[in-house]
């Protein structure tokens, strides 16, 4: 399975994400420069964290116009996996590949700390290695993670099971005090209807190795590999 990591000017989690795919998962991975226009040959494209184009105007607002972004919708339509982490999630929202928008954290300050997340949907390609309702820990580091969507969209996301992660308390309750940024519905991550585009504010790549004291994020990447393996198998069966 071939991973690609998009590098915008001032992406800054690109190397961290590369490290996890390359050194921890041991899978082929390469950087994709923002000026490129093709995603051919990739199976999973990751939009990493950072401050693409300085996040000037609004997080992700300029990055959505990067040439590589034109290739993303068709890549996803063909069934490719797209994972947007933090700034990558913001870019996906700005590009309209996921619904809703990000506002500044309600504290009006940057927040870097560990948060607890409840895994709401384990039927996505990104979450099969978690248990539904499981509470996991991941670091966040953002100034604009205050997710917003209108009530209709929100209901749709709920009804279609597209809210994948929510900020929660230690025993999995969705409480205001567990919410680090004011996001509606304590939403930390959502996916598209088909489930092959996931955006989340927390950083799974920062908690994928035991030496960092937490490997809850590794299972997100392992889920991708697992799902891809199954998909390949099914395809083989179909062709047989």
């Amino acid at each position, binding site marked *: 399975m071939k991973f690609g990591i998009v590098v915008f*000017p*001032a992406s*800054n*989690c690109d*190397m*961290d994400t590369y*490290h*996890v795919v390359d*050194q921890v998962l041991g899978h082929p991975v390469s950087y994709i420069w923002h000026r490129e226009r093709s995603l051919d040959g990739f199976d999973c494209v990751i939009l990493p*964290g*950072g*401050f693409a*184009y*300085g*996040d*000037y105007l609004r997080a992700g607002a300029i990055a959505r116009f990067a040439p590589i972004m034109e290739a993303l919708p068709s890549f996803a339509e063909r069934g490719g996996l797209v994972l947007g982490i933090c700034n990558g999630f913001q870019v996906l929202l700005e590009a309209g590949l996921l619904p809703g928008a990000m506002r500044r954290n309600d504290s009006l*300050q*940057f*927040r*870097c*700390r560990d948060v607890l997340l409840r895994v709401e949907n384990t039927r996505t390609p990104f979450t099969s290695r978690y248990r539904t309702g499981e509470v996991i820990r991941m*670091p966040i*580091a953002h*100034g604009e993670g205050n997710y917003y969507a209108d009530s209709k969209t929100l209901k749709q996301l709920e009804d279609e099971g597209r809210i994948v992660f929510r900020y929660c308390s230690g025993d999995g309750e969705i409480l205001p005090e567990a919410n680090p940024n004011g996001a509606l519905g304590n939403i930390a991550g959502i996916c598209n209807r088909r489930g092959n585009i996931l955006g989340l504010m927390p*950083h799974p*790549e*920062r908690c*994928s*190795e035991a*030496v*960092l*004291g937490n490997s809850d994020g590794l299972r997100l990447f392992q889920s991708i590999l697992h799902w891809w393996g199954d998909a390949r198998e099914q395809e083989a069966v179909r062709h047989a």
Partner: protein
Amino acid sequence: MPEPKADWQEMGLTRQEYDRICSLLDREPNYLETGLFAVLWSEHCAYSHSKPVLKLFPTTGQRVLQGPGENAGIVDIGDGQGIVFKMESHNHPSAIEPYQGAATGVGGIVRDIFTMGARPIASLNSLRFGDLSGPRVRYLFSGVVAGIGDYGNCLGIPTVGGEVGFDPSFKDNPLVNAMCVGLVEHGQIRRGAAAGPGNQVLLVGARTGRDGIHGCTFASEELSEESEQRRPAVQVGDPFMEKLLIEACLEVIAAGLVVGIQDLGAAGLTSSSAEMAGRAGTGLDLDVALVPRREQGMTPYEVMLSESQERMLLVIEPEREQDVRRIVEKWGLEATVIGRVTGDGIYCIRDGAAVVAEVPVRFLTDEAPVYYPQIRQPAYYEERRSWTAADIPVPDDLNQVLRRLLAAPNIAGKEWVYRQYDHTIMTNTVVRPGADAAVLRIKGTRKGIALTTDCNARYCFLDPFQGGLQAVAEAARNLSCVGAEPLGITDCLNFGNPEKPEIFWQFREAVRGLSEACRILDIPVVSGNVSFYNETGGEAIHPTPVVGMVGLLPDIDKRCTGRFQHPGDAILLLGRFRPGLGASEYLAFIHGVEAGQVPDLDLFAEARVQACCRTLVCSGLLRSAHDCAEGGLGVALAECCIGGGIGALIEMPPTGAGSKKPEVEVDITNVGNKMPEAGVDITEAGADRVEQREDNLLFGETQSAIVITCAPARIPHVLRAAREYDIPCLALGAVGGDSLVIRHTSGRIMINLPVGEMESLWSESIPKLMA
């Protein structure tokens, strides 16, 4: 009417300096030349007052790959890798414009690191502010923290550690000292030398505007009512541009395309180019007309002195120009050839065809006057030293004292600060902010590095020599607590006006102290920065010689934090227990007295305590290790409980081997009869008797003491190690329960506080003050 000031006066030169320039040149300098001298001879660039004193620092050692004199120092960490690091002040800009002042402080120090060919991997800082009850102080504090955060977060460099202190002396003159740490392969190390006549001088990055003109002159004068008018001397940062600059420069360096490289910092193009030529013994021929500008109508003077941020100067061979340009332009940056290296040693500035300045490089870089200011011991020194605790009553309710101390801004948790800094990016942060030292893994190896910044400004005020010693000793102790061996120091020396004999006395004494500690603990100084004139309305800050220290952990898996871990673990005190109330946070915060003698320090004993601690951590014998610092043993124990979310039962004063200890069921008497008999260390030859009053036992401050825990079965090993290092090791008690209980040997319960309550007081204090 007062006579209008001459240009050289306006630019900050003295009569004596101006005369010297005239005699060197054998003529009067023109306006631009005067400006060049003014900035390069300013204290900030030339160290004219501090140079002779700084020679005291030991700067060499087996691990030193680069000592002072370059953009940053480098220590060897083996495997062909080096750690590049430096700390720098941005105090005056931050006093006027806290957000941009602090942000550009980070930007400047980061450039110093990647200039050397290193990828920046961590930032730290050391901050000082006045009393948080003042709205202006809160504005400065929140602005500085946001500025540091926003700039570093965008760059993707984790801010992993630091310190924040509060004292009224910093009310109008906060300290913002930023440190950056980089990782470099030996073969990639680059230096800031403009070698090779005929080579091109390339300006890369942001365009040049009028911002920050004379910033370094501003840094070399006291703050006053007029300082607000210096606001235009504060630069504006663009972290996005800096991030592109990092990537472009590292790529150009990795491709082997660079002869010399240097960032444009204080005094902009003038200092970077003159210093590069000075190091190489060459000359330069620059044309200011070629410098890309963001404003129209700029004079050569403005171009040369602009401190516009995010610019780099590269010296390259002419045939490499296209290769360099390709990389730089890929990152969306401009690169412009603005001149060439010459062999005549002349610094020649043109504006198109016209020569607008022409002076020998070495006049600018090597001929600045050196001052040997007068030195006088300040009157306060003996007066404050002679204070004794006799007049201070011992409080009845020591629980309440501990509650208040845990909420004291100098002691309280600083998460309000570091939650605004991205400290987990780059996925190397193994021990996060809030510990004795931050620990980073080095990917692809088993190694780790530990980083800390430290200085107790109150100690330095009351006794600059001792304060200097202790800044080094405590920083090294912090590293030893996590298991790291100290490798090198960067310093940031913040003082008042050196032209005042009392201030220069503080400076010289502090540097003497730092130097002596460096020599005895064998930790060289590899880089540093001096910040004088930290005064407002004639009142100086407390002297604050901040130490930034880097250490090495051979095996990242063998490390410690200060958190208590397991119920039943034994709590021991490694080192001496000789607390004193003088200069303590308790005395200042609870009793409002800033006086007394600072804790004394035996550096040879200190070295043994630290070595012993490192040995214990690295052999995996300890569960936790935490330095005893501000607030004394009582606060140190509370911090260990808060960190671990678990209580402890302690008996004090610690009486060492043979005594009965609560809950520790292992007999620790049978490990040998050389166990220090008198646990309180009162028998040590020549030592003062420990003041037995309860507030002193709990909150008196002591050096060379580390609270450690281990599994009960490990106690004999720990005691054996302590004996081998010839240091005391005293049993304090055991981990367990939900409260910190400290019982006097007389049976009286001195402290009994639930951990949850302590945690709330400690963690909520600063957020409440800032709400």
